[in-house]
């Protein structure tokens, strides 16, 4: 069964002569527990598609259904709650809050939930353990390496155990060794049941996914490719 379904989703920016169509009527289904790689060149519309799937950017047309709910019919507050409970985000360039330490950064999504301080810490430490950084919990982001920062970002994305994880170029700022580590980590999370939708321009990284979707000029370049076995 589809966990997320994009139906004829399109996105335009600007008006009149300045109108640019970033995504042209795409249909896409994401199955629960799957790992989908959305591939494409810069400006192909892959990040716009990810933003729409993740409830961050309202489409100009079409629907994004999640467990049957058209998420863009929700008001701003409910959509924020929906993102917090059902989605995790990993951004390019880590995007950690510089004045919060590693543990606090991971706790961030829990700061506006019902969790008590102690439970927040326990969950954050557990997420840090998953990415192997529990011993650096009290460091500031600028006191750890780029690869470690990306792992902190992954821990933050999974701390509240969201059903789906969106990753936008998660290895964009990492060297080859750290990229491999991060991709292995995502693969492991997927193997544990985490649904992942990842945007990348790297064929090598895309092949970590079970399925590759190529986007070019705002369209799916070809019908969805057959599933590829996740690289270990």
């Amino acid at each position: 069964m589809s966990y997320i379904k994009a139906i004829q989703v399109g996105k335009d920016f600007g008006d009149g002569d300045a109108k640019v169509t970033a995504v042209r009527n795409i249909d896409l289904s994401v199955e629960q527990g799957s790992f989908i790689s959305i591939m494409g060149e810069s400006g192909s519309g892959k990040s716009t598609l990810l933003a729409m799937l993740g409830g961050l950017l309202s489409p100009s047309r079409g629907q994004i259904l999640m467990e049957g709910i058209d998420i863009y019919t929700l008001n701003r507050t409910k959509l924020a709650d929906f993102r917090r409970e059902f989605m995790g985000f990993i951004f390019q360039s880590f995007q950690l809050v510089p004045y919060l330490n590693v543990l606090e950064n991971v706790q961030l999504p829990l700061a506006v939930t019902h969790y008590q301080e102690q439970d927040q810490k326990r969950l954050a430490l557990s997420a840090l353990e998953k990415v192997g950084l529990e011993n650096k919990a009290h460091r500031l982001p600028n006191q750890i390496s780029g690869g470690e920062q990306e792992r902190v970002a992954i821990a933050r994305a999974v701390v509240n155990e969201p059903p789906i994880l969106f990753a936008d170029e998660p290895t964009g700022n990492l060297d080859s060794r750290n990229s491999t580590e991060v991709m292995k980590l995502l693969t492991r999370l997927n193997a544990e049941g985490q649904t992942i939708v990842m945007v990348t321009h790297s064929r090598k990284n895309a092949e970590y996914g079970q399925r590759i979707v190529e986007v070019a000029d705002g369209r799916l370049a070809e019908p969805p490719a057959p599933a590829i076995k996740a690289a270990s």
Partner: protein
Amino acid sequence: MKLKTIALNNLRRRKAKVFFLITGLMIGVSAVVALMTTTRILAEDIAHKMDEFGANIIITPKSEGLSLTYGGLNLGGFSFDVKEIHQDELAKIKTIENAANVRIVSPKVFNVLETSSQKALVVGVDFNSELALKKWWKISGKAPETDSQILVGHDVAARFNLKTDSVMDIKDHSFSVSGVLDPTGSQDDSLVFMKLPLAQKLFGKEGQVGMVEIAALCKNCPITELVAQLSKALPTAKVTAVQQVVEGRMDTLHNFQNFSLGVSGLILFVGGMVVFVTMMSSVTERTREIGIFSAIGFRSSHIMKIILLEALIVSLCAGVLGYITGIGVTWGLLSFLSEHRPHMSLDPYVAVGSVVLAIFLGLLASFYPARAAAAMDPNEALRTL
């Protein structure tokens, strides 16, 4: 972790900006505190001095008859035929509820001096209270010290050709002129002053007074209340407030307050603008951060809360520091503005008010930036990443 942790950590990180914000708001608050406190203390001081400066209540016998003026002021009915006020009754003045406000009581007795060619009004006064009441008097010579000495007004001296140490005969008694008043522009220029007991004896009015001038400290008590209390204590007398003097004093105070309020408003506006501009720039700088908060599920209200919480903490510090600085500045200012340093009283309402004002101003100026941050489109914010 709570939202306040985020707010506090952000403030700790942006020390320079926080310092600038607190300083900007603190200067505004301290200027207002200094201005208000200085104005209040000076106004009190001036009111005190003005209260000491001349009479503001006149007591005359109740009567119908001749109209008499004194110093350009209508004293009501006054006649030599009317039974004078008993001097013993004046002790009752000290028994009224607001007796503490009565600073000077100056009883007088009047009589007309006639010579073959000239006339003058002789006034018996208690020189201690009269000199305290009329601080503007300048005497060439000195005030009478013995019963045989008199003080004469400038016009009387000219008409009777008198100067210091001249001799003047009144009712078969010879008096030496101990001093001549410099021109005052009032009726005092046409009067001859002698000691009250002697005047009472000389004119056959022992134990009686024709008029009492009172200087009351009226800043904190309504003069009408004092008049009512005095009327009750002295039922045979007519007690009148000198309205021009009272209103003049109130006008002076109101002018001070209006000036202080006007300048305070201006300073607060500038302080508010400093906070507004700084908070707006802070929000712009934090677009990325706000985008992350929004993407991971913070509601608009959570983002607003973080920014307003920061503004609250900054404003609270600015309010407390502003009050302390303002009081310090007031202390320094009073040395420059007044020869004798007036008593510096601290008003707890100003202390609480300055903190409340700083918080109100800080939150008000931060409200729009907070709303702008909360309304930020998460995807727009993420596109800046």
